[in-house]
């Protein structure tokens, strides 16, 4: 990274236990371990330790199948259903979320302490592999204007990197994750590709539903907020195995390399792909050098600085090494390194810094963002093959940017292949209602066969702007089983997003009408994520796209980290992950997070003088 003005840290001393300590064995930890683990000083590999709060996952094929069975046997198949969290490293669960009222705040049901006014509804997984164990694998690039929201639309903060600067890292991320897409489908709203570039695999075939929707919707012109847009249903880039392009060999399951070489259509990407055709960080972990030491069930509790000056370097990390089923460890251990990387998510990274003295940069914990996710659902006039294939294989992307972003949130729209599953607990709820109506035998079968395969839905993900009031903070009155403060969260969804919801509602209604579909959308004021705008009601849930709590920027006064995700204050500390995103825009953030991680890995090697 020639443009890095930062002084190389170098190997401070041979006294440090490690060259690099990484906190978190999720997607970012895996990418860093892969890149840094293959670097060497002379003939010596870098000494790298990774501390993971949760358990190891999927070390073998049969180990992973136990997670699959755990999911299949769960009554409520939420994203965390397959993944068992430890009492000493609890994970938030969507089942913990309840409607908030002034009297119920703070609501400490579960791991989060919710201060509202709206509940933060996303979850995550604390385990090796992290939350990308249960991601959908949508791998969209951000559009170029997303990097310049302040300049173009007057909100938030511009990114300190541009689309063009990030482009080569997007390529590395797409090849690491194994993204299936065709370049010609992805060139919209200014997104460009290097001449001759191809994704590692060709696109995942569109579903029968996608083709049906595209047949009606492609070429329709909609006018939203005075802007006319010609609609196009686009194939979604997905990190799941498809037909490989030259130069790429699909990566199968961890511990069973011949399994999962193609997506087999198990239709459970969230929360678990039973054959591992979907990328998870377990695949990257399988390629990490054996010199990298990974210790699971080690919860980092504090960052220890070398003195009390606000810009003191990090001197050590304090962590608890626990064993499930045994009493909690009485005292923490310490580890030292030349470079420290916090590679947790946008809640765990700030949580750790806020638990440490001195008090960090005021941006730490602020600007918590997600994609509030609203669904609308309907029945097609005929069977469109619901409940087949990956959750979503196409979407409408052309509404993700425009002058309207001065006034209201942009959104992307998913076409969803899984009927009404988690909205109404279909197909089980359909079956139960039919049975309760007194249907049985052939009539029952006919009723189910007629109704359920016609179900479909649209999902809308809205950009949420950075708001300093949406934040993670600590209250020592709420601690976990190790005595570590739990994340307290203040969260709201502002009118910018709500206006986006109104725009999408209009779009949804007109598309249902064009498709001849009968809408069944019902929003309820008894749901946790209930909001209104201008009399329009909505239910939103979290998308699991936590971002923004240690934003990157051009200077210390507007951000927590620089464009390499290096702390402004502490020269040997990196905060890497979606928390660095100054704005979340509309693309599912994992691909961008991975691209940024590759870029930071190079900066770390520069710091150590080994590149």
């Amino acid at each position, binding site marked *: 990274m020639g443009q890095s003005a930062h002084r190389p840290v170098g190997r401070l001393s041979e006294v440090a236990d490690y060259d690099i300590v990484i906190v978190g064995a999720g997607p970012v930890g895996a990418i860093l371990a892969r890149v840094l683990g293959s670097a060497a000083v002379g003939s010596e590999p870098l000494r790298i330790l990774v501390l993971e709060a949760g358990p190891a996952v999927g070390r073998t094929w049969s180990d992973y199948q136990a997670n699959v069975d755990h999911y299949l046997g769960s009554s409520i198949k939420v994203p965390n259903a397959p993944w068992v969290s430890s009492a000493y490293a609890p994970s938030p669960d969507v089942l913990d979320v309840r409607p908030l009222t002034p009297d119920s705040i703070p609501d400490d049901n579960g791991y989060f302490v919710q201060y509202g006014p709206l509940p933060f509804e996303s979850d995550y997984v604390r385990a090796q592999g992290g939350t990308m164990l249960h991601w959908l694998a949508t791998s969209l690039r951000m559009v170029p204007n997303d990097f310049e929201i302040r300049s173009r639309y007057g909100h938030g903060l511009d990114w300190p990197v541009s689309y063009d600067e990030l482009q080569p890292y997007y390529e590395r991320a797409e090849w690491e994750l194994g993204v299936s897409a065709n370049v010609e489908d992805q060139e919209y709203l200014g997104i460009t590709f290097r001449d001759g570039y191809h994704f590692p695999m060709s696109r995942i075939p569109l579903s029968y539903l996608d083709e049906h929707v595209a047949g009606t919707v492609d070429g329709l012109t909609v006018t939203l907020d005075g802007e006319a847009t010609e609609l196009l249903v686009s194939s979604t880039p997905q990190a799941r195995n498809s037909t490989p392009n030259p130069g790429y060999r699909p990566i199968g399951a961890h511990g069973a390399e011949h399994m999962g070489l193609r997506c087999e259509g198990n239709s459970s990407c969230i929360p678990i792909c039973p054959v591992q055709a979907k990328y998870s960080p377990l695949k990257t972990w399988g390629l990490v050098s054996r010199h990298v030491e990974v210790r699971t069930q080690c919860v980092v509790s504090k960052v220890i600085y070398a003195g009390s000056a606000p810009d003191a370097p990090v001197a050590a990390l304090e962590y608890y090494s626990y064993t499930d089923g045994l009493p909690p460890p009485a005292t923490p251990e310490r580890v030292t390194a030349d470079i420290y990387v916090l590679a947790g998510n946008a809640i765990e990274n700030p949580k750790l810094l806020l638990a440490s003295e001195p008090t960090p940069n005021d941006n730490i914990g602020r600007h918590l963002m997600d994609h509030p996710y609203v669904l609308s659902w309907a029945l097609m006039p005929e069977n469109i093959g619901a409940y087949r294939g990956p959750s979503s294989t196409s979407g409408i992307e052309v509404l993700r940017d425009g002058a309207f972003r001065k006034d209201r949130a942009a959104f992307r729209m998913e076409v969803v292949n899984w009927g009404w599953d988690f909205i109404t607990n279909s197909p089980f709820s359909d079956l139960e209602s039919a*049975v309760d109506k007194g249907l049985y035998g052939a009539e029952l079968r006919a009723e189910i066969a007629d109704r359920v*395969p016609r179900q479909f839905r649209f999902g809308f993900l809205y950009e949420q702007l950075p708001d300093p009031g949406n934040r993670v903070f600590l209250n020592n009155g709420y601690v976990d089983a190790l005595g570590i403060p739990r994340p307290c969260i203040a969260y709201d969804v502002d009118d910018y997003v709500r206006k986006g919801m109104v725009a999408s509602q209009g779009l949804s209604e007109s598309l249902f009408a064009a498709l001849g579909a009968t809408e069944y959308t019902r929003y309820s004021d008894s749901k946790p994520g209930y909001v209104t705008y201008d009399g329009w009601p909505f239910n939103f849930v979290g998308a699991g796209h936590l971002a923004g709590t240690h934003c990157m920027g051009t200077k210390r006064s507007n951000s927590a980290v620089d464009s390499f995700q290096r702390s402004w204050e502490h020269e040997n500390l990196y905060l890497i992950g979606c928390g660095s995103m100054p704005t979340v825009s509309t693309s599912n953030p994992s691909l961008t997070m991975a691209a940024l991680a590759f870029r930071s890995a190079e900066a770390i090697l520069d710091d150590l003088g080994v590149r």
Partner: protein
Amino acid sequence: MKTRRSFVALSSALTGFREVDLWGTGQADSYLGELIATVGEDVVARLLAAGDDLASGDPAEALGRLLRDDELGPVAKNVVVLWYTGAWRPLPNEWRSRFGASPLDVGRVISPSSYRSGLVWKAIGAHPQGANGPGFASWASPPTVPSAG
């Protein structure tokens, strides 16, 4: 043996799936065992006796009567749900207060294998989410729903 056959015969009439399809799931013993453990042998005996009556007389009339029966109707409906979803759902509160609440009468998936065997997926021309993946690009092909019988 008679009990198992009676259970599957009644289940076939209730679910609209052939007996051979039900035997083929491998779940019959497990479901019957769960049913007996949850509502007791006496209730199951009365349910199966009602089922045995189907052979004589008008089956539709007998099934309608069974499903409307205060005690046996909700149990019969739960048997249908069990076969279609692989999960037990709690009996209605009214049933529990009149006929006795069982500590086992809680919502639960019987086993990963029962979930995979749920008939609802077959009825809609799909496969259980998370299992029996029909293969690459299967989702692109026109959907079909298998005919009953």
